[in-house]
C-alpha cells in the first residue's frame, strides 16, 4: 500500500501593465487589470472549476480517509479570486470544508524574500497564515516556500515560525543516493521534509501530452503500475505540481482530466494506494534521515536552483533595487504602498526577465506578458522608480 501525497500549487501574480518611463511620477497604477482578470477567468473556466469539481466528486465518493489532497494557494491568487472570480473561491472553500483538504502556508505574494530579509519573509508568512485563517478558518502546520526554494537556514526560520514540516524538491543534490519516497528531516532543525518525486510528478505535469516522449500516451494503468512497482519499503510518494497542469498546461483535449480520475479510481479500487496529506504523513511516519542543503534548491528547470529568477544581470539588478527599498517601506503605513510592496515582490516578475527565455522558453513563456526580458526588466524598473518616489514622499 502506497501513500500518495498530492500537492497542488495554485498561484497567479498581479501582472504589470505597460509602464513607460514617462509614467514615473505621473501614475501609480501598475497592474494590467484587464489581462489579469481575463487570464484568471479563463484559467478558472479551463482548470480551477472543472478540477475542483472533479476533486470534490472523488472526495465524496471515496471519503477523506482514502482521498485527500493538499493546496498551496498564494495570497496574490486568493486576492485575485476575491476580485475577479469569487465563485472559484467558494469552490475552494467547499473543498476545504470536506475535511479532505490540507492548506499549506507560504509567503503571501509568492516571493523570494527569504533570500534577502528574514524580517520581511516572516512578515509575509504571517500575512499568508492570517489570510488562510480568514478565508478558510485554516491553521496551516506545513510550510511550502515559493517554487520549493529550500536551504538549511530557511529550515531553521520556518521551524522558528512553528511549522512542523516543509515541502521541498527531491533534488539529486539534496538526496544523493537516497530515495524521495520517505519522510526526511532537516539537519538544521527538527522539521519534517516531504520531497517531491520529480520524475513521476513531471510525467504528469510536463510530459503527459508530449508525443515525442517514449511513454506517450500515459495511461492510468501505466502510472498506477509505476507507483505500485516502486520498492515495497518505499511507501510515500510525493507528487507536487502546478494546479494549472489540469486544463491549462495540459489541455482538456489531451485527456488529462480523464486520465487523472481513472488513475485515482484505479489505485483506490485495487487497494494499491491511499491519497494522504502532509500532516497525516507526519503523524504516521518517522524521519529516516537528516538532510542538509547549504545552497538554495528549487523545483525549476533542470538546474533546480535559483537561476530562473536570479540568473542574469537584469534579474539581480531588479532584485537588489527592490530590496534596497525595504527599510523605507517599513516606515510607511499607507495601505496602497504596503499592497504594492507585496505585489512587486512576486517572483514571477523576475521569472519574466529570465535569459533562458531565449533558449528553451516554453515554460518561461507561459502566461508571460512580455516580448523579451528587456521589456520585463524596464517595465519593472520604471515601476520601482515610481514606487521609490512615492516612498520618499510618503508622510
Amino acid at each position: 500500500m502506497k501513500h500518495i501525497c498530492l500537492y497542488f500549487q495554485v498561484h497567479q501574480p498581479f501582472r504589470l501593465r505597460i509602464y513607460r518611463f514617462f509614467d514615473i511620477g505621473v501614475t501609480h497604477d501598475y497592474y494590467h487589470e484587464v489581462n489579469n482578470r481575463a487570464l484568471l477567468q479563463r484559467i478558472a473556466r479551463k482548470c480551477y472549476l472543472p478540477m475542483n469539481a472533479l476533486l470534490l466528486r472523488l472526495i465524496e465518493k471515496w471519503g477523506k480517509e482514502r482521498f485527500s489532497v493538499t493546496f498551496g494557494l498564494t495570497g496574490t491568487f486568493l486576492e485575485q479570486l476575491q476580485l475577479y472570480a469569487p465563485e472559484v473561491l467558494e469552490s475552494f472553500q467547499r473543498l476545504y470544508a470536506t475535511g479532505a483538504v490540507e492548506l499549506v502556508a507560504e509567503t503571501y505574494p509568492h516571493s523570494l524574500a527569504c533570500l534577502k530579509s528574514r524580517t520581511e519573509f516572516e512578515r509575509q508568512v504571517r500575512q499568508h497564515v492570517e489570510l488562510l485563517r480568514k478565508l478558510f478558518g485554516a491553521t496551516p502546520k506545513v510550510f511550502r516556500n515559493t517554487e520549493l526554494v529550500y536551504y538549511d537556514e530557511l529550515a531553521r526560520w520556518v521551524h522558528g515560525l512553528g511549522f512542523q514540516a516543509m515541502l521541498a524538491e527531491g533534488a539529486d543534490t539534496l538526496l544523493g543516493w537516497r530515495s524521495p519516497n520517505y519522510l526526511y528531516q532537516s539537519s538544521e532543525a527538527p522539521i519534517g521534509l516531504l520531497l517531491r518525486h520529480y520524475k513521476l510528478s513531471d510525467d504528469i505535469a510536463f510530459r503527459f501530452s508530449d508525443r515525442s516522449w517514449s511513454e506517450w500516451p500515459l495511461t492510468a494503468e501505466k502510472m498506477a503500475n509505476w507507483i505500485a512497482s516502486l520498492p515495497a519499503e518505499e511507501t510515500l510518494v510525493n507528487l507536487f505540481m502546478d494546479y494549472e497542469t489540469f486544463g491549462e498546461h495540459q489541455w482538456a483535449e489531451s485527456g488529462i482530466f480523464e486520465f487523472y480520475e481513472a488513475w485515482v479510481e484505479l489505485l483506490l479500487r485495487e487497494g494499491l494506494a491511499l491519497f494522504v496529506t502532509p500532516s497525516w504523513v507526519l503523524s504516521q511516519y518517522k524521519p529516516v534521515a537528516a538532510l542538509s542543503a547549504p545552497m538554495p534548491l528549487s523545483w525549476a528547470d533542470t538546474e533546480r536552483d535559483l537561476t530562473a529568477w536570479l540568473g542574469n544581470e537584469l534579474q539581480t539588478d531588479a532584485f537588489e533595487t527592490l530590496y534596497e527599498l525595504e527599510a523605507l517601506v517599513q516606515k510607511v503605513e499607507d495601505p496602497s504602498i504596503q499592497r504594492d510592496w507585496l505585489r512587486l515582490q512576486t517572483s514571477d516578475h523576475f521569472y519574466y526577465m529570465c535569459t533562458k527565455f531565449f533558449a528553451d522558453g516554453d515554460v518561461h513563456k507561459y502566461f508571460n506578458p512580455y516580448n523579451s526580458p528587456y521589456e520585463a526588466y524596464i517595465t519593472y524598473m520604471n515601476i520601482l522608480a515610481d514606487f521609490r518616489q512615492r516612498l520618499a514622499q510618503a508622510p
Partner: protein
Amino acid sequence: MRVLMLGWEFPPRIAGGLGVACYGLVKGLAYHKVEVVFVMPLRTGEEPPDGYRLLGANEIPIPFPSASAAEFGEKVRFYGVATALGPYMEQIVGPTLEFSVPPPLPEATEGVLHLEFTGRYGPDLLGEVYRYAFAVSHLAERETFDIIHAHDWLTYLAGLWLKEKTGKPLVVHVHATEYDRSGENPNPTIRAIEQAGLEGADLVIAVSFYTRSVVVERYGIDPAKVWAVHNAVLPKDRAPVSRPPSSRKVVTFLGRVTFQKGPEYFVEAAALLVPRLPEVHFVMAGTGDLLRSVIHRVAQLRLGARFSFTGFLPPAEVERLFDLSDVYVMPSVSEPFGISALEALRAGVPVIISYQSGVAEVLPHALKVNFWDVEALADLIYGVLRYKGIRPFFIRHAQQELSQLQWERASAKVVEAYQSLLP
C-alpha cells in the same frame, strides 16, 4: 572556382551596407579558395587588396565601332521593356531611350572605347547602370569564369547580359529591394529591372529570411531558388578607445536619412526622452532625402541643442562615433539586413533594432521594437541609459551571437549555392 562578381560599392567608397557586405563576402570567398574578380563602376585605387581582383568598368576596353549605339539601345530596351507590366510600359520606355544613348565618342580612340563612370548615386544613375551593363557585357570575351554573381538591381542588367552571352549561371544577391527603399511606391523602372534580374537568375541570395519573403511574395519568385544567407561582420582591427568618464549619454542613429531607415521615429522618441533625461544627446549620422524635413522637425520640437547632425561619415569616423555612443538605434521601417547594427555591436555598443529588420533574425538578444512604436522605442533607450542591468547582460550575450556571424561561415553557404549550379 572562379566568380565574376558585379557590384556597385566597395570600400573605402561606400554609401551603406552594400559595400561593406561585398567586401566581407569576397574576403570570405577568398578564405574558401574561390577566385573572385570584382567589377565595380570605377576603382579609386584605395581599395584594400585582399586575395581578389578588382576591376573598374571604366577600364574595360570596348572594341569600336563594333559596339554600336544600336545594339546598346536594343539591349536596354529589351531588359527594360520586356519585363515591364502593362501600366508601367510608357514610363519605362521614356527613360530607357533617353539613357540608352551612349556618350559621345572621343575622336581618336583607335578602335577602342572606354566608358566613364562616377560610381555615385547621382541623377544619371540609370544611365550609369546601363553603361555599366554595356561595358561589363564585353567581359564575356575577355574573362573566364564559372559563375556570375550580381549585387542588387544596379548590376542585374549586366549580369543578365553576361549570362546571355556566356551561358554561365547567374546568381543575384538581394541586399535591398525597391520596396525597402521606397515603400509602397516603387520606381517602376527599378522595379522592372529587379523583376528581370530575379526571374533571369538561376539562384537568388537574400540577406535575410525577411528579404527572402519579399522576393518570393512581392516578385513572385519560386521559393526553391531563393536562399537566405545572412550577412556577417569582419573582426574588429582596433581596440575600442576608452572614453573619458562623462555623465553625458549619447544616442546614435546612423544610416541614410531616408524613408527606409525611419529617422523620424528616432526624432519622436528623442522628444519623449529629453524632458526626462537632462544628460542625453542625440546624434544623427548620415544623409538622405529626408534630412531637411528631419532637421525641421527637430527645430520645431526645440530639440536643436540636443541634436547633432554629422552628415555622411566615412568608416573611420563611424568607428569613432561608436566609441562615443551609449546606445545605437536602428528604427528601420524595412531593413533587409542592417549590417551597421553588427558594427555597433562589434564596438560594444548596445543596439536597439526594429523587428522589421533582417538582422533581428541573427541577434536574438538585441533589444527590439516595432519601428512605429515610438513610446516603446523611447522606453528601451531610457532603460539602456538609466538601468544598469542591461548593458552587461546585452554585451555578454550579443558578443557571443556576434562571434557566430563570421564571413567565413556566410561565404561557405554562398559556395554551396555556387556548387548547386555547377555540373
